[in-house]
């Protein structure tokens, strides 16, 4: 085994009231893809932020190539050769690919200090060629796809002569073909002797691309080793300290009377001719690839977007929402996909977030009843097992999984009859996922109708009574629980096969 390029020993990081990292070890080696595994809140992000100079450690030591290092800021760590591929957040959308790569270290004429655009373009072309990418250096980044933006970030890391490249959930927004491209580049970086830290929640991905792993749990170092020596089950056990026997709750499906009926619903440019019905106590899985139009359908039912054709019936009568408040008044709740932008108000406390849809009922003579508000928040917060210092802290102090729980608590508190969940488990850890599934099953048992929009096939298979499949704005299949077949569903989602012929 080669000597590690970066060694972390007994690393500790305290935040006020929280021990984010406690005695963490990490050995990063050249030419190795190292999976950093742990649930949300296990300390992965904190560890990365310390490595990239954003946070300072409270204790412990980090050595790079044998020498102890103390980064004062992000630039220090970059200069040392540690580069994180952030999500899009770190790009300049209005500037060209070449300039995104060279921002902060523009190539200049030595004497006149004049920026040498020609040389920057040539260098960019070389980098892109090395990654076998067909992107022009002049293209504005805003005109690139998410995947291409990722590749540009990687090119930038190369231009900085990175020795350690950190990738945090790099595939979360990519299509399967784009993921293949990313794998190819990761393998290439590896063969060039770069050390790669790969953070992901997807096990297939980890086993496909990574060599070595380190597992963290609750800020503590749990284990490390070669992935070829372990199984998914072993890793799950390390992550949660127990093995999850049944990822999906056992349910006995029972369906009552029809509540929601959608007929030939269309929205110009987004989806067309969508028909399905939903009964009490039923879970309808909505499957499709990213961009298939599923979110648009549920947004239309919820009154955010306007339909261009077709009808929605609620309890047998025509329902035409003009605004989400119409839908909410009729007992429809939508938990949106992008919880940070659409679901949680980060600057508000947990308690205020939960009671937001209920404010009307919590008001006496136009003033909110703070005591009652707190009671309701605590009640639902405990039901969802939200881990927080208190219900008065701001939502932005929570981990992603706990934020999701706040959103769910918020909508359940409003007592809906139809619950629409758009990608409720995207980017959250195994244990939170299980809690969400448990919660959805309970909701259905209580007689709620649930529409579960998900891109994860196992989740769809494990949870749904009925499955609707969409491809490029069209409904390609509607399956009953008895006919569920993963291959068939996938083929319908890819548009290779149609169960329903529209017309």
């Amino acid at each position, binding site marked *: 085994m080669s000597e590690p390029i970066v060694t972390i020993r007994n690393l500790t990081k305290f935040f006020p009231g929280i021990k984010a990292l406690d005695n963490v070890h990490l050995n990063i080696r050249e030419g190795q893809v190292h999976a950093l595994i742990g649930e949300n809140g296990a300390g992965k992000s904190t560890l990365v932020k310390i490595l990239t100079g954003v946070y300072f450690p409270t204790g412990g030591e980090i050595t790079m190539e044998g020498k102890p290092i103390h980064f004062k800021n*992000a*630039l220090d760590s*970059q200069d040392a050769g540690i580069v994180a591929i*952030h999500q899009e*957040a*770190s*790009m*300049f*959308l*209005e*500037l060209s690919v070449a*300039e995104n790569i060279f*921002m*902060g*270290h*523009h190539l*200049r004429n030595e004497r006149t*200090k*004049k*920026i040498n655009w020609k040389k920057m373009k040539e260098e960019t072309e070389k980098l892109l060629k090395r990654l076998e990418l067909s992107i022009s250096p002049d293209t504005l980044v*805003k*005109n690139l*796809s*998410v995947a291409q933006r990722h590749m540009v970030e990687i090119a930038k890391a190369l231009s900085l002569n990175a020795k350690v490249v950190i990738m945090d959930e790099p595939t979360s927004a990519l*299509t399967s*073909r784009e993921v293949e491209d990313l794998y190819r580049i990761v393998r290439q970086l590896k063969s060039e002797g770069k050390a790669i830290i790969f953070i992901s929640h997807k096990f297939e991905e980890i086993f496909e691309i990574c060599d070595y792993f380190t597992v963290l749990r609750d800020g503590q170092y749990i284990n490390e080793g070669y992935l070829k020596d372990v199984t998914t089950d072993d890793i799950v056990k390390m992550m949660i300290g127990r093995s999850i026997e049944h990822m999906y709750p056992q349910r006995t499906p029972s369906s009552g009377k029809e509540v929601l009926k959608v007929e030939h619903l269309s929205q110009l*440019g987004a989806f067309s001719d969508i028909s399905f019905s939903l009964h009490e106590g039923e879970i309808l899985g909505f499957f499709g690839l990213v*961009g*298939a139009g599923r979110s648009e359908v549920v947004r239309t039912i919820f009154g955010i977007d306007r339909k261009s054709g077709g009808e929605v019936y609620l309890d047998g009568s025509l329902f035409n929402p003009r605004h989400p408040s119409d839908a909410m008044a009729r007992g429809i709740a939508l938990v949106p996909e992008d919880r940070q932008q659409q679901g949680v108000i980060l600057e508000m406390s947990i308690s205020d977030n939960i009671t937001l849809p209920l404010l009307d009922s919590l008001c006496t003579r136009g003033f909110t009843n703070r005591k009652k508000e707190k009671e309701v928040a605590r009640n639902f917060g405990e039901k969802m097992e939200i881990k927080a210092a208190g219900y008065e802290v701001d939502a932005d102090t929570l981990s992603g999984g706990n934020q999701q729980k706040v959103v769910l608590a918020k909508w359940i508190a409003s007592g809906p009859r139809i619950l629409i969940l758009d990608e409720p488990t995207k980017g959250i850890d195994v244990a939170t996922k299980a809690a969400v599934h448990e919660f959805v099953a309970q909701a259905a048992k209580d007689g709620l109708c649930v529409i579960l929009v998900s891109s994860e096939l196992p989740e769809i298979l494990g949870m749904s009574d009925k499955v609707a499949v969409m491809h*490029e704005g069209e409904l390609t299949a509607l399956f009953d629980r008895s006919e569920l077949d993963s291959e068939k569903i996938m083929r319908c989602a890819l548009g290779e096969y149609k169960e329903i012929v529209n017309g």
Partner: protein
Amino acid sequence: MDKSKIKSLGKMIIDRREASLVILLLVILIPIQIRSPQFLSITNIDRLLNDISILSIVAIGEFFVILSNGIDLSVGSVIAFSGMASGMLNEAYPGTPIFIILLLGIAIGAVMGAVNGALVAFGKIPPIITTLGTMSIYRGFTFVLSKGTWVTAHEMTTKFISFPRTRFLGISALIWMALIIIALSYYFIRFTRSGREIYAIGGNATAAQFVGVNEKKIRFLVFILSGISFGFAGSLWTARYASAVNEMATGFEMQAVAACVLGGVNFAGGAGAIPGVVLGALFLGVLNNALPVMYLSTFYQVLVQGLVVLIALIINTVVDQRKMKKLLSQRRAS
């Protein structure tokens, strides 16, 4: 022309704001020219360019600030103070060389801009609040300096007030001043690190810091640059209009911002270019010159200007949204 060529031309018009502005300019010039054939005469074009020279200088100053995702509302007040000081200097010491008067204007602008910049960059006060405050303060300084009086044409030297019209190589000094500012700004914004770092700060301040851009320095710098351009414009203003009054350039921030927005500068920062800003100023100049020719009362000028700016903003938004949609559908297809 085959279809693909038309398509790529259309793409260029949407992508390059400058191209669409040129086309729009041509479109409005045709009826004006038909209505009044002398509109595009050499004399009138010369007058038009003289009219927009000061606006171009000021709009470029405003451009730097908007590019950094800020705004400078103190435009008119800095012009007034610098213009008043220039006029009073010329009155009190008629022998002072013109370039000293211009340097005084630049220095005044730099100091006033530095105060704005310090409040924004180091005091963390939002640009709109800072410059709303200094807008009044600087205007107040002007009244204090002049004790409420004017400097009129016959109190200034002929040399000073005829300077803007003095011709070099057939082009007036005023136009030369604007050309120099345009050229220097273009070089600065395109070929220096600091220039590019304004784009970075305006486009994504967090990301800019990650690659080592000094945010405070850039925010301070853009206000000094805008101050310099406003101060310089103030000296030229007094010479060109042959008077320095306390109320001069009131409301000029509207024109400066309008030229930027018309020129395709992103109001949220991070995008825009000098040629667009100059074209934006030119467009406003044509509009102001053409309306009287079209027998439209000057009362309508402000109204039409406001409308044009609003339409430009709406077009910007719509084009952006359509581009986003196109991008999404491309992703779907791939």
